[in-house]
């Protein structure tokens, strides 16, 4: 499944999608950034409630295919433009991390 296909599901909205064709393989859930850097695999969808600018650096360095902000968390406009610049996909959903992961399974 591509990030674009994922974003078309009704549960998700697009916050930034500079790389729509990236394939999603697997999921990692976590909010502690070093933990994510140690454990997330490339092409994972990363589900988190963290919304500060450092999330973009972590997403980009770990090469996850998309960040999914759950529980209705959003980003400031400034961070959204930075995500587009850095080529980091970010989707959001009102669902919990668990419900989001179940949808992706």
């Amino acid at each position, binding site marked *: 499944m591509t990030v674009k296909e994922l974003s078309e599901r009704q549960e998700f909205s697009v916050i930034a999608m500079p790389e729509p064709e990236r394939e999603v393989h697997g999921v990692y859930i976590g909010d502690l*950034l*070093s933990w994510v*850097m140690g454990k997330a695999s490339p092409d994972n969808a990363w589900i988190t409630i963290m919304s500060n600018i450092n*999330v973009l*650096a972590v997403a980009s*360095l770990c090469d996850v295919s998309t960040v999914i902000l759950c529980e209705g968390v959003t980003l400031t406009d400034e961070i959204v433009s930075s995500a587009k610049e850095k080529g980091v996909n970010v989707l959001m959903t009102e669902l919990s991390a668990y419900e989001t992961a179940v949808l992706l399974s």
Partner: protein
Amino acid sequence: MSDGVKFHYDVDGEDFTSAGRASVMVKKTLRELGLSPEIIRKVSVAMYEGEINMVIHAGGGCADVEITENKVIIVLSDHGPGIADVSLAMQEGYSTASDQVRSLGFGAGMGLPNMKRYTDDMVIESEVGKGTTITMTVNINA
């Protein structure tokens, strides 16, 4: 062996939001040089952890990266407080990060262990009150 490509970056200790800039630039360079995604990931994650540590624990510092034919060498040095007990700091879960830093998602005490795990060699030289220098090497097996 001929000299490799060298880069020098200053890491600003005040600016938390731009932390990671040096790592992102190195990542871009490694990609342009055509290195494998696995090597790029190892180098960029290890360097980012080190860069963030310099920002949150040492008030900034500098990063020197050298890319040769068969390895990437990253040297991070700061004039921060130093690390009194390196083996304690290396333990997973050990952290002295402030609540403010933790609220941003740091402070899991996983940074140094990640740096060790993602690199083929890591040497920490630290003196309390003087600063810390961390040298990491990632081998490139073509």
